[in-house]
């Protein structure tokens, strides 16, 4: 067995603490031939905490930096600045060798299960493989553990000897989940885990995630552009826009009383399954600007209907009220009695 990486901490220490995270990529495009390449700031000063046992959702449009944030946590992308702490231990700048025991505790599930699975390995072997890599248990035990877990994610014995191409999309995602869970991680990062699945299968996977959370005490970082799924599954939610968190708070509160104009527009844009009911839509003009050249001041102001002169000049800070409902907007009205 590995040495335990868990250091005893006061219960107040969050499982994951992210502070002022920045990440920039060099764009391939040059403005001038042989000129400098432009920098794309994918993540620009993101901070949040995830408590143990919590399901934390990150939502936003494509290109807002939600996947990059997840990759920064797992060191799959290099942060330019900022800190990621797991149970108080700093993760940025760790060597690959130091990362290896941590990978047992932090696992990742991607959108496309077929791309995540080895096409030439049987299902059971794929789920056993992490145990071999981390040198856990003996052969018989590994097999037993993998079989048990595959059954508990809802696969039959007949599936275990199959190859990924013989399974349906939902079954493949179950295999990916089992492979991520076999190491008994504490934090599971799911990046759009159900977007590639059919509606009826999506519900199966969402229910499975909820059940696993209950049974295994799993902490979830759930990234999705589907707000209704996030609303359903997550305890707390962060809304990202152009690399920044614009609003964060308890899911029920954020969805029932969104404060940031962007969150309001996002929620109102969800088509409701209610024919004949005209929805009051707050339309957003245009599309998100390029992260290579973000607008000055508040990044949302060119699309915001409440933007004032101040929004064009200054960038609002993320301010929280007593219920930990935070918003980065000058115009957002936080009731006075709730000010932190």
């Amino acid at each position, binding site marked *: 067995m590995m040495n335990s990486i868990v250091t005893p901490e006061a219960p107040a220490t969050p499982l994951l603490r992210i502070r002022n995270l920045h990440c920039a990529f060099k764009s391939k495009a040059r403005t001038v031939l042989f000129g400098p390449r432009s920098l794309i700031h994918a993540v620009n000063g993101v901070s949040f905490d995830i408590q143990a046992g919590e399901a934390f959702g990150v939502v936003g*449009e494509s290109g807002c930096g939600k996947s990059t944030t997840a990759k920064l946590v797992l060191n799959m992308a290099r942060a330019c600045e900022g800190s990621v702490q797991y149970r108080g231990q700093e993760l940025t700048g760790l060597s690959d060798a130091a990362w290896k025991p941590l990978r047992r505790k932090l696992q990742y599930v991607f959108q496309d299960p077929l791309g995540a699975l080895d096409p030439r390995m049987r299902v059971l072997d794929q789920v056993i493989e992490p145990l071999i890599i981390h040198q856990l248990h003996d052969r018989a035990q590994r097999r037993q553990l993998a079989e048990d877990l595959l059954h508990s994610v809802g696969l039959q014995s007949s599936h275990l000897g199959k190859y990924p191409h013989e399974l349906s999309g939902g079954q493949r995602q179950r295999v990916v989940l089992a492979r991520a869970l076999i190491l008994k991680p504490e934090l599971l990062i799911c990046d759009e885990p159900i977007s590639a699945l059919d*509606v*009826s299968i999506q*519900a199966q996977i969402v*229910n499975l995630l909820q059940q696993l959370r209950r049974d295994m005490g799993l902490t979830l970082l759930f990234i999705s552009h589907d707000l*209704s799924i996030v*609303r359903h599954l997550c305890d707390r939610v962060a809304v990202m826009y152009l690399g920044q968190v614009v609003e964060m708070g308890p899911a029920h509160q954020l969805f029932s009383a969104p404060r940031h104009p962007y969150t309001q527009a996002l929620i109102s*844009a969800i088509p409701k399954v209610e024919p004949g009911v005209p929805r009051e839509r707050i339309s957003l003009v245009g599309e998100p600007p390029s992260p290579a050249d973000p607008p000055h001041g508040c990044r949302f102001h060119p699309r915001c209907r409440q933007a004032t002169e101040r929004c064009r000049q200054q960038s609002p800070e993320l301010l929280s009220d007593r219920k930990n409902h935070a918003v980065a907007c000058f115009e957002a009205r936080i009731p006075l009695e709730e000010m932190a």
Partner: protein
Amino acid sequence: MQPLLETRDLHVTFVTDECTTQVVRGIDLTVGSGEIIGLVGESGSGKSVTCMAAMGLLDDNARLNGEIRWNGKPLDSQDDAAMSVVRGNALAMIFQDPMSALNPVQTIGKQLCEAIRLHSTTRPGRKALKQRAIDLLRDVGVPAPEERLKAYPHQLSGGLNQRMVIAMMLAGNPSLLIADEPTTALDVTVQAQIIDLLRSLRDERGMSIILVTHDLGVVAQICDRVLVMYCGRVVESGTATTLFRHPRHPYTQGLLASLPRIDSNDDALTPIPGVVPQSHELGEGCAFAPRCSHAASSCYSSSPDLQSNDGAQLFSCFFPLPVHENREHR
């Protein structure tokens, strides 16, 4: 009123060296003028293939049976010469991924002008072409259309590219648009903009639209009538309102129940158990029976036909859900 497009008992079978696969198994589809029809179903239900069959876009290994009528006249969708007159001018189709519908090495302007030239009877001059292109872009709500003409598809976002494709489609002024998952690849705010655009095409131009999608929310927002497909058959059809409020087929109800609602606090979703069967697994009975909680032995031995109580809502189920029961479910 004469329907614009009509299919009668449409069957599509794909024949390969190894096997024959029946993908569409008897579809009756009627599209009236100015109607927005939703085709709903999971992947593999045959909704795209039905549309491709009507457009004559299927590969050579597809065998078509049944009848397709356009404006009351039979349409031989596998006759390329006949279809090239209809395609674009009467019937047009847009797809999920606008990037793959556009040519990456030509400017938007060049591609748009080509579409206009192909669809005009006269030979417009360069200036007239450009003006028409700008007008079309303005119609679909593209900001600064003059500059966009010089752009290449990769320089534009997915939402703008989808607008470009819609502008190209408008060049032929078709009376029926088939939109195959037009918003699936787009963000939710952009999706709402494209849905508004499609609705305005119907309201202002009287264009009929067949909207193929798996997103029931989109369907509820825009469609007049909905056909729910499962394994190559229509299992339920009716107006959007009745179908969503009072689904009679267990599959329709299952689809609705598996959606999380932004306005509800329910703890667990109700998924449909199991998976969509492969076409070679289909037997004599109802294709949905293995996943259906109401299924009885008769469901496995014979397949129910589409039936109706009121003439408007059709469903193919031996044990339809009572109208009142599912009111609370949503």
